């Protein structure tokens, strides 16, 4: 690893964790403030893209292997669809979350359903964006200094 771009590397290291925390906040606070699965997923992926830009693709793929991203893509969509299947089995319409907690006086089922579905969206979006990035970035081993 070269010692160039020390400012960028320090700043990236400082920013990486807060971006992930912010993504989680956007994910799980989507019921109350702006945000939700799509936004959180994109933010989560952007943190890794930033890391890859500064520290290289291989380092990033050690932290989050491409296989994991590929599995996550499918797992997120499956989680969403399975919530619907669960409501069907429980005896309501597809994606009718009220059945999850049937005798709640404040629609707790809706809250759980939305949380799970948004989590599925978040996982799917984050992993898809990362997979696309890995696919693009993997075609060129590293971005050369003079190419910028």
């Amino acid at each position, binding site marked *: 690893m070269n010692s160039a771009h020390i400012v960028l590397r320090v700043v990236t290291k400082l920013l990486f964790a807060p971006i992930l925390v912010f993504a989680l906040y956007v994910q799980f606070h989507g019921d109350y403030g702006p945000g*939700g699965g799509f936004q959180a997923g994109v933010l989560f992926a952007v943190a890794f893209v930033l890391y890859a830009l500064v520290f290289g693709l291989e380092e990033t793929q050690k932290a989050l292997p491409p296989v994991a991203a590929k599995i996550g893509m499918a797992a997120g969509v499956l989680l969403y669809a399975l919530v619907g299947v669960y409501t069907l089995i429980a005896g309501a319409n597809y994606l009718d979350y009220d059945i999850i907690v049937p005798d709640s006086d404040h629609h707790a089922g809706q809250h759980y359903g939305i949380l799970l579905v948004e989590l599925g969206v978040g996982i799917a979006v984050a992993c898809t964006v990362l997979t696309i990035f890995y696919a693009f*970035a993997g*075609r060129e081993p590293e971005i050369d200094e003079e190419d910028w």
Partner: protein
Amino acid sequence: MADPLVAGAAAAVAEPFVTPLNATTLLDISLLSMLVVVALVMMRLRHLFAVVMLSGVYSLLSALFFVSLDAVDVAFTEAAVGAGVSTVLLLGAMLLTTRREKLKSAERAPIAMLVVLATGAALIYATWDMPSFGDPNAPANATIGRDYIERTPEDIEVPNIVTAVLASYRGYDTLGETLVIFTAGVGVLILLWPRARRRVGTDDDGGQTP
């Protein structure tokens, strides 16, 4: 209760809404003009690196415009995807090709110009039928939008109505959108992945080559 669509239409006929020319409107107009300027500059430039950077600028300006429209969630998606991920992907794509766009022969330019002008004229003609910007009696605000605002506290009890509409009322649509994103990822994988695996050498799942 009267039919909201009819009531809305009646109100619109009674006194047509005129968008007020206040500071917010002026800000919106200046942001939109900057978008047009950036688009024109991108069209004229031949240096692809500058074009990619300007596309990031374009996305950031759009994000600002969305903030001005109070669509904060859309704004930071635009900032992260448009200015962040897309710019990086375009840079990656640019590295695989030349740095400058070749000048094309202007043989078909008149036809292209005609098509563009006709489409633009049709779009501008269509905007005359649209409600004024910010009209509270516009169909989007008066009918289904008002319905969601009134019903969400009783049906879902989630403070953020956007989330309630997205994940609960329109759960099918959002499942479809998630599937579209998944499909996009699979498409990119099919087109680009095998080459990437050989070059980077992360051959970790069987070394299957097509």
